[in-house]
Structure formats: structure tokens, C-alpha cells
């Protein structure tokens, strides 16, 4: 098979894979099994399409092959009980050319099962990219900057955990809807942040992964139009991604928000983000953590120049977010916003509280913010020490280089002042 044909099959899978797996998962009641069946169907497609051509309804073709495999499996496995025998009869009697499209509920079930809280976090991301995004193991490995065996291991582990916990294929009940939705949204956000600011490796960002998160978030806004936080997350991702074109300079070096050429921001994307935030607000159920973060991003997006930023509003939004989440990184961002609105002294006082509580001990974020604020206050020696400490804590090579450069600058400012 030529690489062009392989790419065609991959493209079909990207477009229809989620619905094929979702339909098989509904029919068998088992996501892990459905994924195996779908992979077998895909292997058969790679075998037969180059000879016979791509069928007119490739999704229906794949679903039908998967269903036949399921029937064979159930028939030949004598140890399986009456439930499977009945299921095999049902599968057999259904017309094989039924609509290729799984229902929206099937796709939601797929999303919620792949993001199930019993799964380890990294397995949720890998399984979502595999079954909902329709990406291959090698592609996932490339995007997540891990090895192929690691991705395979995470997916195998995910299937085993689902099996052990007897979670087969599952749309949450009304009682657990809220927390399950939160988990699913956090997986999409995690996919995005992996693309936005790589936690390891040499690259500052990987936009492919961010684009995939955006696609997932748009998909969820259609599947769950009445959930404010779904639109909140969508708004947040569009607004953050709108800055990508300005986030690195011509030499590939990172450019911080205040220094970015705002004309290079993607303003169509900003418009989509602001629209999504309005949709979230219009549902009239208040702002959740994603909508609040989107509102903060919107303050930046609306400011034509860094100096025009409405820092007082940002402080208010961060206070609301900190009150809701208690997240120390949010409290750190609040400190930065306070420093911008009221001066570095006030911001530094908030970072002192954080440092005293020890919550961000292992993160480069706290010392890098402290370093910046100390430098602004002219306390050069302390600034240099904080920035060096921050550089030692980050795993991202580019980030480390930026922090070391700032430390050197602070040291230079100190010596010239003496």
C-alpha cells in the first residue's frame, strides 16, 4: 500500500473513527473491546481498500466489519454467558447497512468513558486522543513527546483499569454529571496546555496538539450546548490560541504577553473566543473556572496595547477564580495582576504568603514571579537569586534559557547600580 493510500485511510479514520468506535461501544457495551474491534476493522481496510477502492460510506463499512468481528468473537467464545449470546443475536438481526453515524450520545459516552476518573490522568489523555481524536499511536507519541511504547502502555493500562473497575461504556448519571463533565473538560484543557507550553523538551509550543484540543472543544459545544463551562472552555482555548502567532519571534524565541505584537494575534480567533464567552454568559448560570479564565484572557484580547490592559478587572476575576478553586497557581497569577494594578510591592506581599505556605515549592513559577517583582523594586541580588532558582526548577530548555538571561540582566542591573 502506498503512503498516499495509508494517509487516505488515516484521514477517513480522523473523520469517522470516533463514531465507529462509539457505535461499536454502544453495541457491545465495552469501550476497550470496541477499540480492539475498530482497530481490526481498520487493519482490514488498510488491506482491502487499496484493491477495492474506498467504499462510498467508509464509516458504515468499518462499523459493519467491526460488528461482524464482534459476532464471531461472541459465537466462538463458549465461556461467555447468555448476555453475550443475546447480544450476538441482536447484532446479527440488525441490518448491516445501518447509518454509519453513531448517535451524539454514543460520542458523548465515548468521551466520558475515555475521560473516566478511575483512569490515571496521562491515560485519559492518551485514550481520548486515540478513540475520540482518531489519532494513531505514533502520532500521539510525537505530539506528547513520549515514546510509542509509552503511549501503547498507557492505552493498554487504561483498558485494563476500565475493565477492573467494571466501567465498560458509560454516560454519567445526572447525579455524577457535574464532576464527570469537569473531568472530561480538564482532559481537553490538558491536551491544549501540553501544546501551549510544553512541560518538557526543547519546543516552546506544539500547535498541532492545541488545534486538536480546539477541535474537541468545538465538538463538545455542539454536543452539550447548554453547559456554560463547555463554552467557557471553548472561549478560553480560542483566546489563548489567538496569541500563538505572536508568541515566538523570528528566531523562535518566546515573547511574553506584554511584549507581543498584538497586531499578530489571530483576530478571527479572538472574535470566536469572545462569542463563545458570551454564549456561556447567556446561559445565565454564572461563570465557572473556565469562563472566568476566558474572561481574563478576554481582558488581554480587548486591550490594543499592553498599557491599555484593565488590570483592576483582571484582579477581580482572579479573586473570583482563586475563591472558587483555591489553586496556588491562580493565587500566583492574582499576585501578578495585583502588582500590575497596584504596584510590585503589593504583588510581592501576596507571593510572600504563597512562599510561606510552601505550596509551590517545586515549581519554577513562584521564584520566577518573585524574581521579576524584586527586579522591578530594584532589589537586584534577591531578584537574581530567585530567577536562578526558577531556572533550576524548570524542565523546559527554552524557559530555562529565558530565566537565566533575566537573572543575568538582574545581576547586571545590580552591579551597575553599585
Amino acid at each position, binding site marked *: 500500500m502506498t503512503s498516499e493510500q495509508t494517509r487516505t485511510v488515516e484521514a477517513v479514520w480522523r*473523520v469517522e473513527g470516533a463514531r465507529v468506535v462509539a457505535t461499536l461501544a454502544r453495541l457491545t457495551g465495552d469501550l476497550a473491546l470496541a477499540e480492539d474491534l475498530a482497530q481490526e476493522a481498520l487493519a482490514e481496510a488498510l488491506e482491502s481498500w487499496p484493491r477495492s477502492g474506498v467504499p462510498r460510506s467508509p464509516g458504515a463499512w468499518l462499523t459493519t466489519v467491526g460488528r461482524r468481528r464482534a459476532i464471531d468473537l461472541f459465537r466462538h467464545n463458549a465461556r461467555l454467558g447468555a448476555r453475550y449470546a443475546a447480544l450476538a443475536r441482536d447484532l446479527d438481526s440488525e441490518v448491516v447497512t445501518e447509518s454509519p453515524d453513531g448517535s451524539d450520545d454514543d460520542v458523548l459516552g465515548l468521551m466520558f468513558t475515555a475521560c473516566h476518573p478511575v483512569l490515571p490522568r496521562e491515560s485519559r489523555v492518551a485514550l481520548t486522543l486515540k478513540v475520540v481524536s482518531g489519532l494513531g499511536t505514533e502520532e500521539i507519541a510525537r505530539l506528547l513527546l513520549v515514546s510509542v511504547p509509552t503511549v501503547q502502555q498507557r492505552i493498554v493500562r487504561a483498558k485494563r483499569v476500565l475493565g477492573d473497575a467494571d466501567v465498560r461504556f458509560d454516560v454519567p448519571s445526572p447525579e455524577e454529571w457535574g464532576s464527570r463533565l469537569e473531568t472530561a473538560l480538564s482532559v481537553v484543557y490538558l491536551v491544549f496546555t501540553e501544546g501551549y507550553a510544553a512541560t518538557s523538551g526543547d519546543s516552546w509550543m506544539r500547535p498541532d496538539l492545541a*488545534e486538536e484540543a480546539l*477541535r474537541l472543544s468545538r*465538538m*463538545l459545544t*455542539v454536543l452539550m450546548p447548554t453547559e456554560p463551562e463547555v463554552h467557557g472552555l471553548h472561549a478560553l482555548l480560542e483566546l489563548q490560541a489567538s496569541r500563538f502567532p505572536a508568541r515566538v519571534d523570528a528566531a523562535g524565541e518566546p515573547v511574553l504577553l506584554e511584549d507581543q505584537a498584538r497586531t499578530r494575534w489571530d*483576530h478571527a480567533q479572538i472574535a470566536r473566543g469572545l462569542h463563545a464567552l458570551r454564549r456561556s454568559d447567556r446561559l445565565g448560570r454564572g461563570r465557572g473556572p473556565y469562563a472566568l479564565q476566558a474572561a481574563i484572557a478576554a481582558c488581554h484580547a480587548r486591550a*490594543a496595547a499592553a498599557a491599555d490592559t484593565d488590570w483592576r478587572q483582571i484582579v477581580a476575576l482572579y479573586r473570583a477564580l482563586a475563591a472558587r478553586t483555591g489553586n496556588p497557581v491562580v493565587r500566583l497569577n492574582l499576585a501578578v495582576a495585583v502588582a500590575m494594578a497596584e504596584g510590585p510591592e503589593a504583588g510581592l506581599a501576596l507571593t510572600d504568603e504563597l512562599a510561606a505556605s510552601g505550596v509551590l515549592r517545586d515549581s519554577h513559577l513562584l521564584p520566577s514571579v518573585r524574581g521579576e517583582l524584586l527586579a522591578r523594586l530594584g532589589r537586584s541580588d534577591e531578584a537574581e537569586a530567585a530567577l536562578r532558582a526558577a531556572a533550576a526548577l524548570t524542565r523546559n530548555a527554552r524557559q530555562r534559557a529565558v530565566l537565566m538571561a533575566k537573572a543575568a540582566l538582574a545581576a547586571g542591573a545590580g552591579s551597575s547600580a553599585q
Partner: protein
Amino acid sequence: MKFMLIMRATPEAEAAYAETDFEEIINAMGAYNEALMKSGVLLGGDGLAPEPGFVVDFSGEEPIVTDGPYGEVHELFNGFWILQVSSPEEALEWARRCPLGPGSKLEVRRVTDETDFADYADNEYVQKEAEWRRELGTE
């Protein structure tokens, strides 16, 4: 990456459409658009009204305005979609699914982004254009 699917109809397609119940066409296109929405790839799109507009021809020394584009072209540009997808193949796969009939064509073209003009980043109008996009909130 972004792609534009450009819909073109020939007189043959127009004739075929005239024979078809318009509600059927709306339903087929609606289902296609819904699939694009549910997949999260659709960023935008629009149709162009069927009545003739004007054609301005720059072949001569002075621009010549004629009614048109009917009679002037064999294929009428009558609508477009903008999709965000992961590969040209994925864009092509979506194009293949569009419910169009004989005589219709769908052209798949990548939409340029700022990286295409990276060598001209200092150009006054490239910079101005970015500012205009900011003001218009559009692209």
C-alpha cells in the same frame, strides 16, 4: 491548518438543482454542515446568491463592466466553507462527503496564514493588514 472548500456549479448542476426539491437540497447540505459542526472542524462559510452580479474585466486599457458572471464562465463560484483540519487528506476527505451532484465541483485550497508572509513581515501593508484585521475582528 485551514482549508477552504470552494463550491463551483456548471449550468448542468444548475439544471439538476432546478429539478430537485429545494427542501431536499437544504436538508442534505444541512446534514453535511451539522456533521462538520459536530466534528469541530468548521470555522465558517457562506453561500453566494444565484442571481447574476457584475463582472469587471481588466483585459483592456480601461476596466469593462458587464452583467454576469452568467454567460461568461463555465463554472460559477457559489459558496465556500473554511475548515480547520490536521492534514490536506482530512480536508479532502470532508470535501468528498459534500452532497453535491453531477456538474458540481469542490476545490480544496489551503488558506494562507501569517507564516506565508513571514519574509515580508516588515512590509508596511502586511503590518497594516494585521491592524485592520484587529479592528474588523475578522479574517
